[in-house]
């Protein structure tokens, strides 16, 4: 919105406040989303963030965008085990889905908790040698020289002198709008969809401490996030090679701990685990049933480790997967507001 002229007659833009499109059940069951006071949502900020998210301009050679490793059709994750950076090098962790991140009350982002806010997180990939391999001064120069971006930044932040903080703020505003809350299970809770018998059995197993006992790390129907946003060693390896949270914190008690991902949109987010080692949900459930490995920091919540896990029958595995897939929302992956604005 162009609202006034300053003394030097240059236009002054005041961005239009925006609100998240929060599902009613979120509003009723969990605290308000976290919106930093120094980065309120605005229509212009969200639009700019969306533009930047899909623009390869942030990468050193203008070849990859955020959306290349966080693809809308994959619930903003990457179907490749490891994403490939501009040099062709691969990372060593699977790209996390981007959904409902405004409700990460722990304020620890990434698999290893190394970012303390979304804005903080956005600084990393741009300069990571195996991702965009750029420098922030170069990003700022490139955007500043662009024919369109200075005006977009001015409209979003009242300032056309682009800096890295403004870039990360805009990206964060867009990412906060990526809300998934209309899966079949959400509609079931709202009384507009019915679970099949298999899905019902899977839900019971999920909530059964003597069954799947999934809920202690991934939450219950009373909470729409389907993650505790906390960190666990879930028994993937007997020998820990990726220290995860412990690498960041330096605390040996946290070696091999990784953030619990949300169970939403599993239909679109394969492969699974922090290192993308499992290609299918079947492999994931087999792992929790029979594949657990003991290590010093394994979470006490992991049961029957000596026997490999919770020992589910084939029918139980089928039911559990059926339930888990009710947490997926195809419309989230095709929401027009979340797609590339240039297509």
């Amino acid at each position: 919105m162009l609202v006034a002229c300053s003394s030097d007659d240059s236009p002054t833009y005041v961005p239009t406040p925006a609100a998240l499109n929060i599902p009613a059940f979120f509003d009723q069951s969990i605290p308000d989303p976290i919106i930093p006071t120094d980065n309120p949502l605005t229509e212009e900020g969200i639009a700019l963030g969306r533009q930047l998210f899909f623009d390869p301009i942030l990468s050193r050679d203008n070849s990859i965008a955020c959306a290349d490793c966080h693809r809308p059709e994959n619930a903003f994750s990457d179907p490749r085990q490891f994403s490939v950076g501009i040099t062709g090098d691969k990372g060593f962790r699977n790209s996390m889905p981007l959904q409902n991140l405004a409700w990460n009350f722990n304020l620890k982002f990434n698999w290893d908790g190394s970012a303390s806010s979304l804005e903080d997180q956005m600084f990393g990939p741009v300069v990571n040698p195996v991702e965009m391999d750029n420098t922030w001064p170069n990003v700022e120069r490139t955007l500043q020289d662009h024919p369109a971006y200075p005006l977009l930044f001015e409209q979003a932040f009242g300032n056309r002198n682009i800096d890295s903080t403004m870039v990360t703020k805009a990206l964060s505003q867009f990412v906060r709008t990526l809300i998934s809350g209309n899966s079949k299970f959400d509609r079931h809770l709202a009384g507009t969809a019915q679970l099949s018998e298999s899905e019902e059995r899977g839900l019971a197993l999920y909530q059964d401490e003597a069954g799947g006992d999934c809920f202690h790390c991934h939450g219950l129907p009373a909470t729409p996030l389907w993650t505790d946003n906390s960190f666990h060693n879930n028994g993937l390896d007997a020998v820990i090679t990726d220290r995860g949270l412990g690498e960041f914190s330096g605390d040996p008690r946290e070696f091999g701990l990784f953030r619990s991902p949300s169970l939403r949109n599993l239909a679109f987010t394969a492969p699974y685990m922090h290192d993308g080692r499992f290609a299918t949900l079947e492999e994931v459930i087999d792992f929790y049933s029979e594949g657990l490995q003991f290590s010093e920091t394994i979470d006490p919540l992991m049961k029957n480790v000596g026997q490999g896990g919770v020992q589910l029958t084939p029918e139980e595995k089928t039911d559990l997967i059926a339930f888990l897939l009710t947490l997926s929302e195809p419309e989230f992956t095709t929401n027009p507001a979340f797609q590339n604005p240039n297509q």
Partner: protein
Amino acid sequence: MKKIALLFISIALFVSCNSDDNAGNVITDDTTGPTLVSVDFNFTQNFDGENIVNADFDELKFTNENGQTMSISKLVYLISDITFENSSGEVFTAGDYNLVDVRNTSNLTFTPDVTIPEGTYTVSFTYGFNDEDNVNGAYEDLNVADGTWSVPEPLGGGYHYMRLEGKYINSINEEIGYQFHNVRANDMSTTPLTLKDTSIEVILGSITIVDGATIEVKMDVAEWFKNPNLWDLNTEFQMLMPNYDAQLRMNENGQNVFSLGEVTPAI
């Protein structure tokens, strides 16, 4: 935090709960009334008298009454309805709650949202939620606290009272995880589900409250495994939430877990 309502007044009144966030502090004073003060509570934890600090977590350094070596990796518990009753039978309570997370040192200090006249009171609180407050999904902050503090509806819903987790050395010298989770007792073998309120009213005793008062509430973790039921982790170390009898015995052992610590300023 969504607060349960608030009230005070006389013994003849009951303490009810609702979600009225607008309820203010109960007592309105006039210029001739007594000085009203708030009271801080400081929660400390020990194992048979040895203070538990962050560095103790994940260390196989404790020995329970049954002789089993154990560690603690998580200790999170809920207290609610801190209440002050004076000699006239007047009751003061904010009816609010506090989730103590020992490892992360969060909420180790809590100030109930009520002010009271200086004087001598019998001070008590509820460990966990009593049935009146233990309403499924009612508290937004608890729905996401520590992941989710909720209890599955098939187990009666509501909220955990405590999550105590760690590892112990079993009878064949293996390191095994335990989950000592305390909830409202539920018997899934009956239809409908049989529920029993296993929260605990803890009476700290008579305490003189003055301005700036801080009351220490001590938790002795060892007591959960000791008295009157000697706890054998070899047989009961996991899947305790749906174990009705185990929850009843936790309730019995929990009667001596909490005690009054230091009160400052000393009177």
